[in-house]
């Protein structure tokens, strides 16, 4: 480098008179980034999957699993001599609002209980009541307790110890609070993998990568422009999801925006690296689509985007925690919901950096431009 161009051709450049001013060192990077952003912005699918989809998902799940007062227990009372008395007792109980009871013939009652329309079936006997409930259904277990309490209280049982309760539903403990950081993590993963991995293989298949390296374009600039475009997109994704959570669901952001930004940027770069690795050799977009799904699928399920990974058996926990999306989700949740400073998250950030570094290292060794 730095030598003068070969000068075997004595005439010099063919059109020396019409050359524009000399391009600076970063001109190529600037135009590559610009071109990438324009292409993304002109691709309706990108706008949908990157921006609209996570918001719609948050909206849908946020509404479906919104924290509301526990549903009324739906109770079927089997028709018979004691049915009227049971209804009367339930109607007189202090907790009568918690139970909605209806009288049905035995066949219908059990059938509809089986289909989930009722949580509990009460069969009046000569001087007792028999409950039919499903121990595997939380609402059924709850219905049995609530109904039993109501019947006992109405029949005259008194409490041995006086107790009082006060309701408290604070932002931060709700499902939507759990969900938004998880969606953010998952979105950073998806758009990193597709935005880098798919885009690169597409360009390779179109022989555009080869055309680029046939020019004096710096290969490092090209990859840097791709990574930068991911960071720009990351900023928009982050701003959209967080402000959506705050505005639509009154989510409270406890941590500093800077720490959230740092974690998101690390996540975006880490998954950009994994995307680069996935795309390093594949020649066809069909191949890379399969590869990307193989990488994404386990993390969608295991890494706690939609539900806590604590539900998986203990033996899987170390493996789950070593996944990059788990580290990203945990770090985002800790920063957003608990306001944890970055230093307390060193381990998670290290996991992200390690995945990113190993991916970039291998990808750059294996990467094929042609």
């Amino acid at each position, binding site marked *: 480098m730095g030598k003068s161009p070969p*000068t*075997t051709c*004595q005439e010099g450049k063919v059109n020396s008179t019409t050359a*524009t001013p000399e*391009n600076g060192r970063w001109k190529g990077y600037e135009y590559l980034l*610009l071109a990438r952003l*324009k292409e993304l912005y002109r691709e309706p699918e990108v706008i949908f999957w990157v921006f609209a989809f996570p918001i719609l998902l948050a909206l849908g799940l946020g509404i479906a699993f919104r924290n509301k007062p526990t549903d009324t227990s739906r109770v079927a009372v089997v028709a018979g001599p004691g049915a009227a008395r049971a209804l009367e007792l339930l109607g007189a109980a202090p907790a009568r609002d918690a139970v909605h009871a209806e009288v049905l013939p035995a066949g219908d009652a059990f059938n509809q209980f089986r289909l989930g329309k009722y949580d509990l079936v009460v069969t009046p006997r000569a001087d007792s009541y028999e409950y039919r409930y499903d121990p595997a259904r939380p609402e059924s277990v709850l219905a049995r307790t609530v109904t039993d309490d109501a019947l006992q209280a109405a029949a005259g049982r008194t409490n041995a110890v006086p107790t009082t309760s006060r309701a408290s539903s604070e932002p931060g403990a709700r499902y939507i609070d759990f969900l938004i950081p998880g969606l953010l993590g998952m979105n950073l993963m998806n758009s990193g993998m597709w935005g880098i991995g798919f885009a690169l293989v597409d360009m390779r298949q179109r022989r555009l990568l080869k055309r680029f390296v*046939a020019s004096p374009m710096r290969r490092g600039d090209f990859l840097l422009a791709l990574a930068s475009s991911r960071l720009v997109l990351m900023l928009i994704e982050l701003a959209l999801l967080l402000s959506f959570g705050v505005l639509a669901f009154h989510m409270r952001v406890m941590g500093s925006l800077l720490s959230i930004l740092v974690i998101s940027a690390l996540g975006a770069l880490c998954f950009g690296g994994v995307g680069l690795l996935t795309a390093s050799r594949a020649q066809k977009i069909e191949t890379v689509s399969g590869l990307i799904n193989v990488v994404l699928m386990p993390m969608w399920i295991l890494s706690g985007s939609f539900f806590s990974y604590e539900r998986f058996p203990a033996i899987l926990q170390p493996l789950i925690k070593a996944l990059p999306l788990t580290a990203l989700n945990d770090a985002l949740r800790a920063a957003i919901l608990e306001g944890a400073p970055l230093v307390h998250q060193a381990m998670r950030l290290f996991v992200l950096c390690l995945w990113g570094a190993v991916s970039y290292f291998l990808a750059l060794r294996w990467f094929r431009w042609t």
Partner: protein
Amino acid sequence: MDVAIRCRQLRKTYEGKVEAVRGLDLEILAGECFGLLGPNGAGKTTTIEILEGLLQPTSGEVEILGSTWNAQNRELREVLGISLQETRLGEKLTVRETLDLFASFYRRPRSTNEVMAEMALTEKANTWVGKLSGGQRQRLAVATALVANPKILFLDEPTTGLDPQSRRQLWEIIRQFQQRGGTVLLTTHYMDEAERLCDRIAIIDHGLTIASGTPAELIERLGGHHMVEFDATGDGLRELEAWRSLPGVEAVHEEDGKVVLSVREPHETIPALLAALQKQNSHLLHLTTRQASLEDVFVRLTGRHLREE
């Protein structure tokens, strides 16, 4: 004259098996338009991509403007304009954006406006690449090479799949570039393209040069400048050697059931041919004469047509 491109004993073996190029020598002078002519799969693209520094040869030497690829990669790329076979440029960028992007890679590119005007793309400056016709896309591909302000232009099958008007348009652009002192190396499987455009040609088949020279030289080497093609009744027709002895006949072969004679002077050969047919009592079914072309050179050398699969 300076040598712009030189390669010696170029070989390329894919995965230890397929020998795409088997010892190719080329010397292309500065200011020349040189054509690599050959059927599909002859090794043209492999050769040109090795010369462009995009493929590593299995063995052999390449020199571009006096330098080798490993030594001066980036400096060399600054002075080459390359158009690959079938590159699909970003569909959602406009013509101007695409050219600006490629121009940004070069230290001293040409102005985008000027190149667009030259390539008749100014009207399409703000059109997405995805909306261009085949001819316009191909002109844009060549424009991305010209915006480099190159000394050498590499074009791999620049006119394949284009309509006649688009082909002529592209030929004109290539000639203009050459008139300004540029060197052109192109591959093609169109005979007429090579004949009209190229100063010199190398005919490539199975990874080897089977003939090279100016189009006129190659046709000259065929022996005759004219081709006489005929068909007649009777059985004597198939004995090709008999026709070889007619006056002025240099070579004979059979093609599509007709006899084809390479002749120096048709006016000497044709009366003798008619007389010979009459003697055999056979009737002429078909007779044409035409100028010999590179296609005939190729058929003569390989026994096959260029466009045959």
